[in-house]
């Protein structure tokens, strides 16, 4: 089973066409291993991206270098998954 320890979901807030273009290029680059949770980019809508732990610092640097605002939406994806799984196991027991 694939684990997501240390993966974060960043909420990225593009503010310009340059930001949007940069995100589009990243989305098309499958090797980046970024997981876009919603698609389509505009300056009116945030983009949520799951970033593997190993890519986290590089991706945050990229965003900061390009002055693309972001916040951390989920700090550790695996923690949420563990909670979800525990709840399911409990429900199955019930």
């Amino acid at each position, binding site marked *: 089973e694939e684990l*997501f320890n240390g993966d974060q979901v960043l909420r990225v807030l593009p503010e310009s066409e340059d930001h949007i273009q940069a995100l589009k290029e990243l989305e098309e680059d499958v090797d980046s291993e970024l997981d876009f949770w919603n*698609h389509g980019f505009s300056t009116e809508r945030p983009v949520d991206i799951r970033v593997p732990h190993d890519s986290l610092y590089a991706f945050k640097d990229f965003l900061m270098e390009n002055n693309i605002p972001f916040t951390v939406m*989920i700090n550790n994806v695996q923690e*949420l998954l563990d909670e*979800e799984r525990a709840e399911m196991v409990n*429900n199955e027991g019930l």
Partner: protein
Amino acid sequence: ERKTKSFNFAAYHNLETIYAFMDTLVASHPSLISKVNIGSSYENRPMYALKFSTGGVSRPAIWVDAGIHAREWVTQASAVWIANKIASDYGVDPSVTSLLGQMDIYLMIVTNPDGYAFTHTSNRMWRKTRSVNAGSSCRGADPNRNWDAGFGGPGASKDPCSDSYHGPYANSEVEVKNVVDLIKGHGNFKSFISIHSYSQLLMYPYGYTCTDVPDKSELHAVGTAAIKELTSLYNTRYQVGSICKIIYQASGGSIDWTYNIGIKYSFAFELRDTGFYGFLLPANQILPTAEETWLGLKYIMGYVRDHPY
């Protein structure tokens, strides 16, 4: 019926439990609901739609599907609740009773069963089908880029490793082909509604082009009114518009294909993400999500009933 009443709708369930629930629901309402096997998935899992019908032959019908993107768990969970809601409201809610007096409803709770099973066993973040791609180690295609509507155009990837890979050709994914065959074979669907999550949107065609559909004004008005109903419950904010204009250009989508074959009332929901959880919406939000979605869905269904074409 005892089992249906004790089913925990406020929890996420695996495929086997959902299929068992469907059997129980059918057994509890044998004169209203039947289980239609529309074919098998790539990994040979059966694909079922629940058919709600009070009789008649080739009645006009409404299609609702959930879970075509495997990881969007709140959609399958909401569809389970909605199935039970339709069954329990028939004969009680005049709107549902009247609807089923004139039309059939087909509800597909798990449209991508292989992907859904995979999210439970191997990768919670899996979105696509599980088909093998020749010449690639990456599996699956995005089943909502695989329909014969602008197939292979903008907003879909040619790369089998991408989450939005369109597949080798239109309808290459058997899960899509099975639905296409059912819709074509039936021939009298008046509405097609696909349920996704998240972002809180209600969309109508087109996605593969930013050109307006001829029925744009009506679809926008229906969508806006449906969202007014949906929002009335918990004030969840939705946007309404065409796929291309309110989110992005995306080719090969299901509702573009259904619209182009003449199913005017084609819509796609993107359900709620009220917290900062994305696809990991806590189970305690399943019921509120399903309840509010039902209000929007019921509005669209009632409108379709009252506006035959």
